[in-house]
């Protein structure tokens, strides 16, 4: 690796046949070849053609990222691989469910911060809340960080989904 080849984060969108084993193929490729997965989401997105979209956030030097994409592309059930990070402007979102336990002062503060972050209360008990927060990952990180001091119990995160800006399909 030359010094100019520094690692950077890339969000890669993969359109695949929705068939058994496809996720194992993709994940096995990453583990088998020593690439890392920072975030992974998958769900069926096209009922008619039975396709799923997998969104993976990974990191690597430009040569490694190029290799990851080429490796993904040669999997037989993969239809399309797009590097959203290289492909121009795109938007990324992540959703988290954040459970916070507390009463009095802390409970009020948690609710106030949730409001600032436009997090929704989706469950409320006398001594707890479950917040739903959506946004770019760093916003979700910040919100969770703030809740740590206010009785954070549990976090569930979806991982990143992403798409390009504008009218073009990914």
């Amino acid at each position, binding site marked *: 690796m030359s010094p100019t080849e520094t690692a950077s984060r890339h969000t890669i969108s993969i359109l695949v046949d929705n068939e058994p084993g496809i996720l194992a193929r993709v994940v*096995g490729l990453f583990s088998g070849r020593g690439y890392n997965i920072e975030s992974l989401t998958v769900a069926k997105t096209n009922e008619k053609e039975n396709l799923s979209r997998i969104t993976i956030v990974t990191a690597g030097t430009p*040569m490694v990222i190029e*290799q990851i994409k080429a490796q993904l592309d*040669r999997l037989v059930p993969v239809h399309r691989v797009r590097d959203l990070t290289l492909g121009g402007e795109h938007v990324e979102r992540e959703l988290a469910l954040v459970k916070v336990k507390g009463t009095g002062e802390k409970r009020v503060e948690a609710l106030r911060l949730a409001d600032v972050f436009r997090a929704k209360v989706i469950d409320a008990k006398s001594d707890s809340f479950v917040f739903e927060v959506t946004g770019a990952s760093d916003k979700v990180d910040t919100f969770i960080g703030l809740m740590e001091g206010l009785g954070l119990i549990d976090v569930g995160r979806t991982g990143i989904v992403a798409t390009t800006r504008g009218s073009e399909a990914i």
Partner: protein
Amino acid sequence: MKPEESATTGADLLVKALIDEEVEVVFGYPGGAVLPIYDSLFKQNRLRHILVRHEQAAVHAAEGYARSTGRVGVVLVTSGPGATNAVTGLTDALMDSIPIVCLTGQVPTHLIGNDAFQEADTTGITRPCTKHNYLVKAVGDLARTVHEAFYVARSGRPGPVVIDLPKDVLMNKHEYEAPKKPVQHKSYRPQVKPDPKKIEEAIDLIQAAKRPVFYTGGGVINSGPKASKLLTQFVHLTGFPITNTLMGLGAFPASDKQFLGMLGMHGTYEANLAMYHCDVLIDIGARFDDRITGKLSEFSPKSKKIHVDIDPSSINKNVRVDLPIVGDAAHVLEEMIRVWKARQPRLDQKAHKAWWAEIEKWRGRNCLAYKQDKETIKPQFALERLYHHIKDHDHYITTEVGQHQMWAAQFLKFEQPNHWMTSGGLGTMGYGFPAAMGVQIAHPDALVIDVAGEASIMMNIQELSTVAQYRLPVKIFILNNQYMGMVRQWQELLHGGRYSESYMESLPDFVKLAEAFGAVGLRTGNPSELDGVIQEMIKIKKPVIVDVLVDKAENCFPMIPSGAAHYDMLLGPNDRAEKPISEEGMVLV
């Protein structure tokens, strides 16, 4: 016809699909889960089944068949242990890009996941060692899956494909679905035709080169015999030097004066130095394997690199190239020749003359020289004599893995593609003998020789029974040094000559072993008898083991120790002392 009338069992559909895919031979081994298929095979006479003695050998035999014919090799094994025994062969085929379709039996669908008798998660186990695999869950999908598997195995960069077949699927009934031609796969469509702009750019680089070299590999063989013809034509048109990888041998005639021999770890001095000093490197169907590049930071440092490959993942994997061209070797070469002829470029003759003069100087080192005496047979000598006697016969060579494999690559001359089968990427001891069976099945009248080591041959020796059954006149030419020579050589180089577990104790008497299986055994350790023994081997129209007792201490040179650069070649035993292996090099294999 009503559906019920035309419906047949899954097993019969499978056989029909194989016939429609123009399969002639299946290498296999039966078991409970595949009994319906064996029953279907019994009832027909279009497909020939070759019963091996171990499933690994079935895959290697199919590889030999495939590599020597350009067709897809077909394997049939049972569930569980049948499938797991095939894994080494599948991995071998993946690494060397050999088209294989392997049918594995599976427990019935309702028992999958229950730890049923002879159940194994075959698609899970073979996912990383196949190009693709399928689990057929309904008989209605069976025929289509088989056709798709053949398409995937042979298209683009070829490779092994597994179809896992639960027993109930084989017994259920459905109508047959013929293959659709041409195949339009919904997602797998490798790029065959190159981008014309890139061809022009390549010719720009090639015609301006002053110190060019062609570096070509297995991709040219994969592309088919036409690619080898075109390569030879283009190399002649340019007048440039050319070197081949181990997997590419035969793609360009070895006797041609533009040929520099094999490159890489055990490649020639002239080939490796040409790679180091060249200004334009033209890679066609070779994947910059670590046996080739040596120390990456010192690999061909002054060259502009053109890389033609059908698989984009081979490009910029190990070595950054300046001009990647995705496409099939034959298509690319055809275009290159067309543009070259249209341009009629004038080369810098002076520079080319100087380049060839330099190459001739390197050639003058005669890096493959060895000293034959009157007492013991040098392995190199045995192979030179072997080649002398077989060169006018229609012959095919396979090898096992080790020093003998490298000497075979160095000392036998390959004049045409598809006549040389060796395990390059995985380096599987035990490959050569079953591969030779597969070659012999495809070419019944040819002289098929497995150049073997005494250690490697023990790994699939049970196949003597198979060659006896089918009267396959395969020749096993053992260079018997009583060592795992390649291991011993590394221990000498890296571990102070402590030959830990690399001596072959208790070897069988190979002559008697041959006889026990109804084959013929010959032996010699005397240089003056060697010619006679080889001639006799060729004459015998039966399987023969030739046990050639060779010098036990001989090492394979030249050698670029792992982690070293191309100019750091060891040319002989006396070179070693001056060039200690680096710590970085010690960790490499």
